[in-house]
């Protein structure tokens, strides 16, 4: 039933993506903005401070916010042009209902009633869990909290998960195991004070550009830089040591580095004895991972692995940063644990200029994973299967703990359950799975099987084209709230303008639905600030304790680092000082990691490794950035990056179109022949839909602990297309 409601061309013609290039009325018309609103960029986890220029109640531009300490006015091109998502011709302005051909208008009351009627009908026939909810990590903390409460108390389904499942969960699960808390261990201000920066699997310059300057400020003091990445990214180009790891081999490499560190006497035995447990097993495990034994598998000469280890041992203070490059794997959690083993064994954490962090990717990738919109989680980063945690939250919510649903499916599992008919209804907010989930063909088949799908969104995303009902929600700059940045700093998102037309703030839509679902008294919020106050109260005593944070305090302090357990508590920029970790016994945990190969390895039929990632001018599934003209023009369409040696073997020249195939599907795109990638690896950025989607090739293989997909390794083949001049398809 849920095939797109009209031919694709018609939907694109009506709802986009179209490209916006100028503020309303042109650049000259915005000469005298009425006000500047201090807020943050709507895109990545760096959450740069920006000022939105507002004129005649419309967002007309951006002015750097030089006083905000994290970025001091610095912005990437997305931050400069982000304002163009407002006043956009594609903006959804009315609730839409599927008709025989496309969508037609429907009054709000009828639309909201329809959601409740159809969801309840499905639940009556097929059980409460036959309806799922997908939400997102670009939502504010208030909305993330609200979605968790909405799923459990209003809809009554256990199947709620978020798109952070594609982003932060491997790092989160590993941090929780090792440290008992899931947050960057150090504020970014510690990076410039370090002596060695080790970056693994993070294209810092394109995915977290502001971090580039932090790293350079360390280098300006003489610090060294090591980068581990199969692609020679801009941050890697000038590195002191670059390790071009073969995709999917990170844990073997990290074990070998630790092997050499141990042999070179780099272990901080006092720290290990006083502040950790489990080192002996790690010692026994990494003993077998000598640089010589792993060199061929990881694709790096043994001498370079030794060099990295020696640099690590020699540096008094180190800062290890990693991101999705080591986390998007079926062993994402293990890769992260192997990083943490290195940090713990050498005692290089919890000190000024010395520490560790994952670089959270999504706008609220940190806060969005703490307040209960995950399938296994309750607010305060509590465990939905822990009876004491359930009892606490149930008491705060005024319900019987037995009525709280249990652990549900992860986002990819939800899509699989839709595909097999177990889940029949879906409500989504801030998630575009048709572009972002692996194996896009499978995702499309699943969406086509939905019996009732409601999408809350500001643009008609590729996924929302399949919806029965589309409710126009709010852009980031149309609502108040907070997010928590990659540093663990809780900051304020401010409303610059009202939602246009009939569009409504997301939280109002969710609360209105909750009323209709019969849970109104638990959703009687008059403002996002009231939601925050409840969130802070409920989080008290949890790992992610926000109970001492208020909006006023955030504004006064330019952000508050959680945990902040009391009103007079200043917040906690640096974790683990004095070697005190968040487990009950205060000790960090080592986890011995045995290397395992990726889920799909290359063979004669599919001899190349595909790895996917981002470009600086686009963000995630591109729902916003593919509608911003200047950003689209920076990198208009995906290309497959390949080394000249591989191109020569395939008789392919730069710019020629090729077919890239995997066991899941194929796509045709231009070759980008560059000597800045391993010759056995090709790269495609993932921001595009349909026939340009890298996720036609990726596969549904997941980390067993975190459920994160293996976006970074798939086996593919490349064939030259025999049609010269076919480049003008776009």
């Amino acid at each position, binding site marked *: 039933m849920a095939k797109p409601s009209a031919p694709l061309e018609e939907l694109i013609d009506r709802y986009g993506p179209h490209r916006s*290039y100028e503020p309303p009325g042109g650049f000259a018309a915005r000469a005298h903005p009425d006000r500047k609103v201090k807020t943050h960029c709507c895109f990545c986890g760096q959450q740069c401070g920006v000022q939105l220029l507002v004129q005649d109640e419309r967002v007309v531009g951006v002015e750097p916010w030089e006083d905000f300490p994290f970025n001091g006015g610095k*912005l990437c091109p997305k931050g400069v042009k982000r304002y163009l998502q407002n006043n956009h011709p594609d903006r959804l302005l009315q609730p839409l209902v599927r008709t025989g051909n496309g969508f037609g208008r429907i009054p709000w009351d009828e639309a909201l009633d329809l959601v409740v009627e159809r969801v309840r009908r499905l639940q009556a026939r097929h059980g409460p869990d036959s309806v799922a909810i997908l939400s997102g990590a670009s939502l504010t903390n208030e909305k993330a909290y609200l979605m968790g409460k909405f799923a459990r108390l209003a809809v009554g389904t256990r199947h709620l998960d978020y798109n952070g499942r594609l982003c932060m969960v491997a790092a989160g699960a590993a941090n929780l195991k090792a440290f008992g808390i899931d947050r960057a261990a150090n504020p970014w201000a510690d990076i410039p004070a370090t002596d060695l920066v080790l970056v693994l699997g993070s294209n810092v310059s394109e995915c977290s*550009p502001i971090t580039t300057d932090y790293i350079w400020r360390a280098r*300006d003091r003489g610090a060294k830089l090591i980068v581990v990445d199969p692609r020679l990214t801009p941050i890697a180009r000038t590195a002191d040591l*670059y390790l071009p790891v073969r995709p999917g081999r990170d844990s073997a490499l990290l074990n070998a580095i630790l092997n050499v560190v141990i042999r070179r006497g780099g272990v901080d035995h006092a720290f290990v004895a006083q502040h950790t447990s489990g080192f002996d097993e790690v010692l026994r495990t990494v003993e077998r991972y000598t640089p010589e034994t792993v060199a*061929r598998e990881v694709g790096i000469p043994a001498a370079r692995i030794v060099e990295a280890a020696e640099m690590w041992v020699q540096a008094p203070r180190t800062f290890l940063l990693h991101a999705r490059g080591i986390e998007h794997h079926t062993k994402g959690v293990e890769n992260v644990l192997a990083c943490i083993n290195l940090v713990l064994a050498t005692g290089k954490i919890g000190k000024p200029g010395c520490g560790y962090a994952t670089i959270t990717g999504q706008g609220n990738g940190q806060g969005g994973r703490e307040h209960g919109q995950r399938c296994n989680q309750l607010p305060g980063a509590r465990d939905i299967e822990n009876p004491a945690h359930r009892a606490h939250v149930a008491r705060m919510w005024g319900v019987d703990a037995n009525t709280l649903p249990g652990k549900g499916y992860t986002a990819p599992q939800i899509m699989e359950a839709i595909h097999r008919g177990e889940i029949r209804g879906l409500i989504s907010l801030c998630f575009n799975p048709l572009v972002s989930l692996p194996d896009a063909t499978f995702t499309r088949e699943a969406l086509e099987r939905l019996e009732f799908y409601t999408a809350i969104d500001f643009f008609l995303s590729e996924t929302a084209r399949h919806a029965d009902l589309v409710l126009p929600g709010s852009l980031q700059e149309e609502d108040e709230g907070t997010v928590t940045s990659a540093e663990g700093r809780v900051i304020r998102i401010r409303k610059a303008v009202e939602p246009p037309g009939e569009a409504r703030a997301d939280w109002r839509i969710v609360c209105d639905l909750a009323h209709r679902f019969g849970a109104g008294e638990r959703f009687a919020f008059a403002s996002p600030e009231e939601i925050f106050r409840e969130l802070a109260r409920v989080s008290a005593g949890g790992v992610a304790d926000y109970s001492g944070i208020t909006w006023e305090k955030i504004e006064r302090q330019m952000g508050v680092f959680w945990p902040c357990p009391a009103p007079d508590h200043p917040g906690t920029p640096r974790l683990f000082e004095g070697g005190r970790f968040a487990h009950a016994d205060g000790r960090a945990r080592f986890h011995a990691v045995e290397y395992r190969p990726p889920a799909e390895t290359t063979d004669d039929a599919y001899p190349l490794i595909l790895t996917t990632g981002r470009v600086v*001018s686009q963000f995630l599934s591109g729902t916003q950035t593919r509608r911003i003209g200047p950003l689209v023009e920076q990198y208009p369409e995906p290309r497959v990056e390949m080394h000249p040696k591989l191109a020569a073997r395939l008789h392919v020249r730069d710019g020629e179109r090729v077919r890239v195939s995997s066991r899941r599907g194929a796509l045709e795109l231009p070759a980008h022949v560059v000597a800045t990638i*391993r*010759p056995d690896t090709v790269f495609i950025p993932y921001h595009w839909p349909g026939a340009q989607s890298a996720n036609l090739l990726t596969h549904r293989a997941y980390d067993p602990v975190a459920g994160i997909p293996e976006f970074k390794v798939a086996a593919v083949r490349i064939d030259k297309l025999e049609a010269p001049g076919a480049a003008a398809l776009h």
Partner: protein
Amino acid sequence: MQQLFIDGNRCIGCRACVEACSECPGHGGFSMIHLDHVARATSVQTAPTVCMHCADPACASVCPADAIKTDPDGVVLSAAVERCIGCGNCALACPFGVPKIDVQRELMMKCDLCYDRTSIGKAPMCATVCPSGALFYGTHEEVQDRRLARPLDVFAFGEHVIGTRNAVMVPAPTAKVEVGAWNVPARSRAELQLEEALCD
């Protein structure tokens, strides 16, 4: 004196400077900055080109309409709209390839160091947003104090030596840059280390 310092080593090619420049109310949608890959087939190295604000600007010397003026602070201004005839002499003469000609308006446009911002003590837009610090606005003392790289503002084109208000950052103290015929850029250590990658 506050100057713009350009460090190509730090540039990540993100084009934040280009996009920020195009936000200027005076030339909205049109950037005065060129951002180029040096040799993308072999390297990710990029380089921003902004007006160097020469002490004796060739663009002004060759202008038949006397449309290009230098202000008392040494900032070479964009062409005066009422004078410029769009002949393009300046674009041909500039040793750095900076001026752009808007053919329809018959007008040359170039960076005037964000006159609206720098005249009130703020950094130009490009240097304000640059996320890597490849574009830095400050004093000589500040940049010497903060960075290992050294500023350089003398360029020799054969026997023709040009002094500039803006400076480029170079790895070690150097008297001047000898700008010669095209040289293949030296490969970075990381680029050589990629060649060592073990593949099956």
